[in-house]
């Protein structure tokens, strides 16, 4: 159904973006064949990689590809975990990496306008320079703004401040026809027609290519403090979370982390976690505008934790100490990456999280597979890591391939079934991509998927834009 890429089309592409921004060299193309998902069997090489530098160029590329019926897969930082930016049908990978400009910081509206290729590691410092605050914080700072919006990413701070969707006010989008549309604007309110802006957020590059975004910022909280709370057992740690919510205590983030992955990451980074007590930790980050508020909030949190048998409450409250704690938390993924098959991204109602994690532990024992599970305890988003190894006496012991290969699929199914029973979804913040596509019907009914197919056809009648993602047409 797609046409092959011809030399003539490559020449056209070179005319649009310039010779050096069209990559045909197989050795260089291979970098554009995968994202962060570990199994190489989903990787697929593009026929050509094109690096655009402006919205106009994106428009001309899409209009050409639409006419020639060549698939186009948009690509940002490629930090995704489910194959969303893998060019599954070959064709063109359209990399937005050169479109990395901050267009405007609007102090009066407290908004920032950024191009899709701005990396988070460049975005946050710019926002902070203005004394402002962008609350969502997806784990990988090499992610780019466009991708973060296209997956509706979240991160640890969603408990108090919500996910990326809550902060996007306007988008410039190029449709598969090449038409450029502007959705929303520097607006706090809009009840004007169907909300295409929100349809675009989380659409994983299947409806249009996001080239520019207007993003709401908040005044920066005056101070933050991280509490590190060890528990003898996981159940007490997780049971603390609904207690906090029931008492209307609203920290910035609540993470639960087992000790084994902390120890592995301490070794990996040669840094030290604040405590060696217990078997599980809660990491609770509080923000406040005065020291009195901060003390009151942390004392309330501590009291509830101690009632639930916490062993102590350790504090990191200057930037370098907090940085050290957060670095260990955020590098767990890298420390165990070599042994990770897949990171699940199940989101359940917050009150269900303890039961779901209990089920994960049962499945881990049934299948004799290591399933380190940690995540955003207070927003219901659980990251179970399916490992091709077991963890014994402080060491990671790899499993033979034939062993984990059979188990992977079964473990996925078991956990997705449990997710469905608890009224959850299979992705809280990573998206569906290719990897979770077969399981979409576990949690969405056929009618809904059918409506989604209809929307896809309306936006992209030739199905050239990131084909084969989320669902099959």
């Amino acid at each position, binding site marked *: 159904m797609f046409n092959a890429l011809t030399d003539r089309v490559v020449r056209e592409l070179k005319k649009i973006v310039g010779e050096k921004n069209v990559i045909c060299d197989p050795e260089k193309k291979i970098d554009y064949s995968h994202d962060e998902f570990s199994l190489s069997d989903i990787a697929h090489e593009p026929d050509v990689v094109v690096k655009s530098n402006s919205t106009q160029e994106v428009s001309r590329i899409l209009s050409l590809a639409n006419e020639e019926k060549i698939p186009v897969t948009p690509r940002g930082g490629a930090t995704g975990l489910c194959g969303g930016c893998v060019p599954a049908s070959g064709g063109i990978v359209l990399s937005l990496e050169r479109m990395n400009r901050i267009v405007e910081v609007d102090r009066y509206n407290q908004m920032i306008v950024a191009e899709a290729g701005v990396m988070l590691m460049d975005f946050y410092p710019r926002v902070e320079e203005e004394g402002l605050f962008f609350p969502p914080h997806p784990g990988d700072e090499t992610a780019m703004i466009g991708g973060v919006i296209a997956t509706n990413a979240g991160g640890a701070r969603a408990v108090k401040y919500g996910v990326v969707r809550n902060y996007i006010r306007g988008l410039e989008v190029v449709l598969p026809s090449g038409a450029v549309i502007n959705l929303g604007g520097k607006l706090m309110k809009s009840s004007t027609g169907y909300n295409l802006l929100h349809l675009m957020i989380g659409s994983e590059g299947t409806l249009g290519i996001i080239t520019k975004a207007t993003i709401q910022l908040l005044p920066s909280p005056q101070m933050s403090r991280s509490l590190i709370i060890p528990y003898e057992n996981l159940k007490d740690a997780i049971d603390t979370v609904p207690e906090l919510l029931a008492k209307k205590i609203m920290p910035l983030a609540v993470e639960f982390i087992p000790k084994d992955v902390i120890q592995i990451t301490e070794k990996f980074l040669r840094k030290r976690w604040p405590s060696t007590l217990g078997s599980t930790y809660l990491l609770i980050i509080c923000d406040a505008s005065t020291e009195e508020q901060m003390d009151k909030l942390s004392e309330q949190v501590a009291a509830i934790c101690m009632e639930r048998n916490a062993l102590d409450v350790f504090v990191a409250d200057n930037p*370098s100490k907090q940085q050290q704690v957060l670095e260990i938390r955020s590098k767990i993924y890298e420390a165990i990456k070599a042994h990770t098959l897949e990171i699940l991204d199940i989101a359940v109602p917050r009150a269900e999280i303890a039961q779901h994690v209990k089920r994960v532990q049962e499945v881990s024992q049934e299948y004799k597979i290591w399933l380190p599970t940690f995540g955003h305890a207070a927003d219901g988003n659980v990251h179970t890591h399916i490992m091709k190894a077991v963890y014994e006496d402080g060491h990671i012991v790899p499993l033979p391939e034939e062993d984990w290969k059979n188990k992977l699929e079964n473990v996925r199914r078991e956990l997705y079934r449990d997710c469905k029973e608890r009224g959850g979804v299979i992705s809280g913040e990573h998206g569906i991509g290719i990897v979770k596509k077969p399981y979409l019907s576990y949690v969405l009914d056929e009618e809904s998927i059918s409506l989604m197919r209809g929307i896809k056809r309306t936006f992209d009648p030739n199905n050239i834009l990131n084909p084969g993602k989320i669902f099959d047409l």
Partner: protein
Amino acid sequence: MNIFVFVKRVPDTESKIKINHETNSIIEEGLNFVLSPYDEYAVEEALQIREAKGGQVTVFSVGPDETRTILKKCLAMGADEAVLIKDDAGETFDALRTAKIISHALKTKYTEFDLLLFGKQSVGADSAQVPSMVAAMLDLPQVNVVTKLEIEGNSGTALREIEGAREKVTFMLPAVISAQKGLNEPRYETLKGIMAAKRKEIPVVTLEELGIQPDELAAGLELTKMESPPVKESGKIIEDEPSEAAKKLAEFLRQDAKVI
């Protein structure tokens, strides 16, 4: 065992330092201040010695009222007492001045001690002179840049870093020790510790009370200019076929960089 630890309030090492060129000082607005990291090793070591041998840990800092925050932190870590020696002079970079104030305090008001612990240097001024000056003024044995410390009875053994090796030094108490990274892993405060520290009084001693005459502290050092270090230039990229690029690199290393 009566241990005194001397600590300084410094900008957080994560801070971006901006300079006011008119006053030749750093702009404090928006900066976070912390206990100087090397001093934190000194506090931790004092606490560990106390836990093993008993005794009392008192923490001192010379500085303005704002210095209380880091003294509170030391109390939260577990120090028994903290004393603020109030000096509103701000950052003078004058190590001799600080050493005079400390040794005055130790000669007149706080004369009972077995061990004086310092960080090997403060972060920011980084002069690494105060511990040795104090030791000289009080005529005490001293070991600097210590990575291991053992106290037994009225003597001690310390390992200190020297170029390419470690030196073992034995000494009699009382003595001055300055702490280097690696001496220990400073503990994190507990919330309970922080809240208890908040309620604790920190006595304030003025320079007058210590009997220091202003002319004794006349500046021994003049600050003429403060500048940020030059911005590091970005690296050079040699783009060519691998065999050609390697040749160009070798040529560059030989002729321009003169390293091979």
